[in-house]
């Protein structure tokens, strides 16, 4: 066992090494201040280490090592675009860099859309109250150094401020061109009181990526967020979603992940105003050398809020699924309703599911529960279908889809949910 002080020093040394020779991007007053503060946080926390309790089940090495392992797109069918049926405003990023030509004009009624690389040059921008601010808050109780690294060095990303009800969804489309691109993206989304937006994200991003999204929801604001993560096999990625919810605000976020060598999706949600609602869900299917980690922290910091976490993972051929989820209920947050479920379906003996579903509760008048299960396809259900003449492969597929459907049900928009379901089915069919 390495002494604790020595581990801290090792992590700090790793940060110094990583920072060595890297200069913070040039920018205006607000961005420079935010970046400098983030760099200081990174120096203080150090780089993540496999020895951190917080990285117990996922080795962060590939996310931080100096060279990017090449990630080749094997199956072009895997990169088929999603949400094409949806009337949306498209913003395209190639290898994590904004591509204005491939994008629609950034026009959405009631919304102000700018690119981080432009806004960071100005001395004053509304995003300064959010950029790096929510990320900094997210460093307690547990440090997330990859997010600070992102705040300090990201130059790409979109800054969206919505005042009314956005008439069309905004879609962020991620494309790849090189096999060794290393992308840093940082988005900021601010919904003023009563505003509404549907945000779609789709695509393989880059061979390696580190993405931070900071979301600030004013009173009664509603954000629907649907994300389909890159389906290429070899990419590695870490994402952080930091969301602050005002009174009566609603956040619904769903993530679909299929393959990828390593994915760590962190979500940090603060229910700061009373009567807020946060639903966060994920479905993932992994095959072979696949490691998928959902790490979620929901903090009830005001009374009468509701939170729901629903995570489903289908794993086969040595794939590893990780779920670390925590509900923290502050003393003030009476009448909290917190729910969390994480389930995995292991299709082969060598698949793994590692979970740490936590509750930390300081208020007495609450209803909080969590559940976690792991197992193979239910023999009775399988027998039932076989007895009715359903062929073996189809029966298996039906049960896998039924298992994942509980997470897809978390999506309010039925058309979008149906598209994801079709997509998933096609994906599973190609693989069986």
């Amino acid at each position, binding site marked *: 066992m390495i002494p604790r002080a020595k581990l801290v020093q090792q992590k700090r040394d790793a940060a110094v090494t990583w920072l060595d020779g890297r200069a913070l991007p040039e920018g205006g007053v607000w961005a420079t201040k935010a970046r400098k503060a983030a760099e200081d946080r990174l120096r203080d926390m150090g780089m993540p280490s496999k020895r951190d309790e917080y990285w117990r089940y996922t080795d962060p090495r590939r996310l931080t090592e100096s060279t990017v392992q090449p990630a080749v797109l094997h199956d072009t069918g895997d990169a088929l675009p999603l949400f094409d049926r949806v009337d949306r405003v498209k913003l395209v990023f190639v290898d994590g860099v904004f591509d204005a030509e491939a994008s629609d004009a950034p026009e959405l009624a009631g919304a102000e859309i700018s690119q981080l690389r432009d806004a960071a040059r100005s001395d004053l921008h509304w995003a300064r109250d959010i950029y790096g601010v929510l990320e900094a808050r997210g460093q307690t109780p547990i440090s997330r150094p990859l997010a600070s690294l992102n705040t300090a060095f990201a130059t790409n990303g979109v800054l969206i401020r919505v005042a009314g009800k956005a008439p069309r969804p905004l879609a962020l489309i991620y494309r790849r061109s090189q096999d060794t691109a290393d992308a840093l993206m940082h988005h900021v989304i601010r919904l003023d009181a009563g505003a509404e937006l549907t945000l779609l994200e789709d695509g393989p991003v880059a061979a390696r990526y580190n993405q931070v999204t900071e979301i600030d929801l004013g009173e009664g604001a509603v954000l629907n967020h649907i994300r389909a993560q890159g389906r290429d096999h070899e990419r590695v990625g870490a994402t952080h979603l930091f969301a602050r919810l005002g009174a009566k605000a609603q956040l619904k976020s769903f993530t679909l992940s299929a393959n990828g060598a390593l994915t760590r999706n962190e979500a940090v949600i603060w229910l700061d105003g009373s009567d807020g609602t946060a639903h966060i869900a994920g479905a993932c299917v992994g095959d072979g050398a696949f490691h998928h980690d959902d790490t979620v922290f929901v903090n009830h910091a005001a009374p009468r809020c509701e939170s729901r976490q629903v995570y489903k993972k289908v794993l086969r051929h040595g794939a590893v699924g990780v779920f670390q989820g925590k509900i923290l209920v502050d003393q003030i947050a009476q009448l909290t309703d917190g729910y969390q479920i994480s389930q995995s379906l*292991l299709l082969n003996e060598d698949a793994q*599911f590692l979970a740490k579903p936590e509750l930390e509760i300081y208020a007495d008048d609450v209803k909080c529960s969590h559940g976690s*299960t792991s197992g193979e396809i239910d023999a009775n259900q399988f027998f039932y279908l076989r007895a009715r003449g359903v062929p073996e492969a189809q029966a298996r597929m039906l049960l896998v889809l039924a298992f994942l459907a509980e997470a897809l049900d978390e999506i309010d928009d039925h058309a979008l949910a149906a598209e994801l379901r079709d997509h998933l089915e096609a994906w599973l069919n190609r693989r069986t």
Partner: protein
Amino acid sequence: MVALDETQLRDGVDRETVETVQSMAGTYKHGWETEIEMEFAPKGLNEDIVRLISKKNNEPEWLLEWRLDAYRRWLTMESPDWAMLKIPEIDYQEQYYYAKPKSMEEKPKSLDDVDPKLLETYAKLGIPLKEQMVLAGVEGADEPRKVAVDAVFDSVSLGTTFKKELAAAGVIFCSISEAVQDHPELVKKYLGSVVPQNDNYFAALNSAVFSDGSFVYIPAGVRCPMELSTYFRINAENTGQFERTLIVAEKGSHVSYLEGCTAPKRDTTQLHAAVVEIVVLEDAEVKYSTVQNWFPGDENGKGGIYNFVTKRADCREARAKVMWTQVETGSAITWKYPSCILRGDDSQGEFYSIAIANNWQQADTGTKMVHLGKNTRSRIVSKGISAGHAQNTYRGLVSMHPKATSSRNYTQCDSLLIGDKCGAHTVPYIEVRNASSRVEHEATTSKVDDDQLFYCRQRGMDEEEAVALVVNGFCREVLQELPMEFAMEAQALVAISLEGSVG
């Protein structure tokens, strides 16, 4: 408390229980001190103290070396910081590591020779050290149930009852210091084989300085003719207690073992770091029940025992079974995770726990179920109750190794909060490394149900009684797993521990 009318007794709570609760009502019942002349080793911890303890126990060389090895490893280790506990810094040099009543200088030949003051202590605690007695309040069907007791007072064992009768069955039940003298080969073979010296910080400390504890050996095919029990009493001030218990159940044997603990009420905190090792061989079954009632500190959080305990059972062979049941009501700080290593195919581990934390108590307790063999099964039922300013954490690990195919775990942890200044936390680790195993974990947190309280209050109970009744109902699944005499004590304790938590 208002006396209960006969008609208001709920199923499963008999009049006797209620009366016991009433008679015990008030504060910590076992907080008095026995005034007796003690012999202490010098304060502080170093290799000489380790040597002294070993010498006092007349130990062979290998055991001294084993202790010194543990001590040297302990020096390189750090106190664990991962539990949700605020542990004030402990000055290990400000403790006594060995305390023995002067009257025990000459080892008494039997319990009849033991200093009457010491015997009185146990009588006052309700622990029968006379063989004809059974534990208070329990009426057996025809003949009274016998319980053999090993009484440990600070660092030494006073004596063990029913030795002859147990010996006739081939069962060895004695203090570990006696076992070192009389059965060195067994001690050498099994000591540290379940919890190695460097297992963790507190286990290393215990391995270096353990003074006494119980040793149990059940030969193959023997069903232990009575329940075995050890009662630990900390009496001396500034003295740590480091007992070591070793239970070996040979093929096809069966034993039920009970453990109880109390300490005087003092302003200063006291350290207790115990290790319990259980070896369970083919088809054997061990049931280990604990009612832990160390002094929890006063209502302002002053004093109390720091309880840092490592308990582990190793189901080494096929179809071995172990069952931990614990009622944790005492101690200022509890750090305790009785575990099961399910090595043998088809072996089984069970863990039933009630942890109550009131006032300023902190508890971080749970279990580990490590599934290594095929078709192994485990079951965890944990009930945590927090009141006052207390913090109560369930921490558990369920690990299904790749070879532990077709295994099964079910975990249920429920937390109950009484008042808005306490905390209830759940930290389970679930590691599934094969597909054919099935793991289920459920946890809930809620407050004492207002409707249930209202119902009780309407029927004339005062608030505290009503809460005690509701809480006893909440704990019932665990209480019913306890041996009868413990279940009663536990029910009473549940009520007492929560006193002052409402209103």
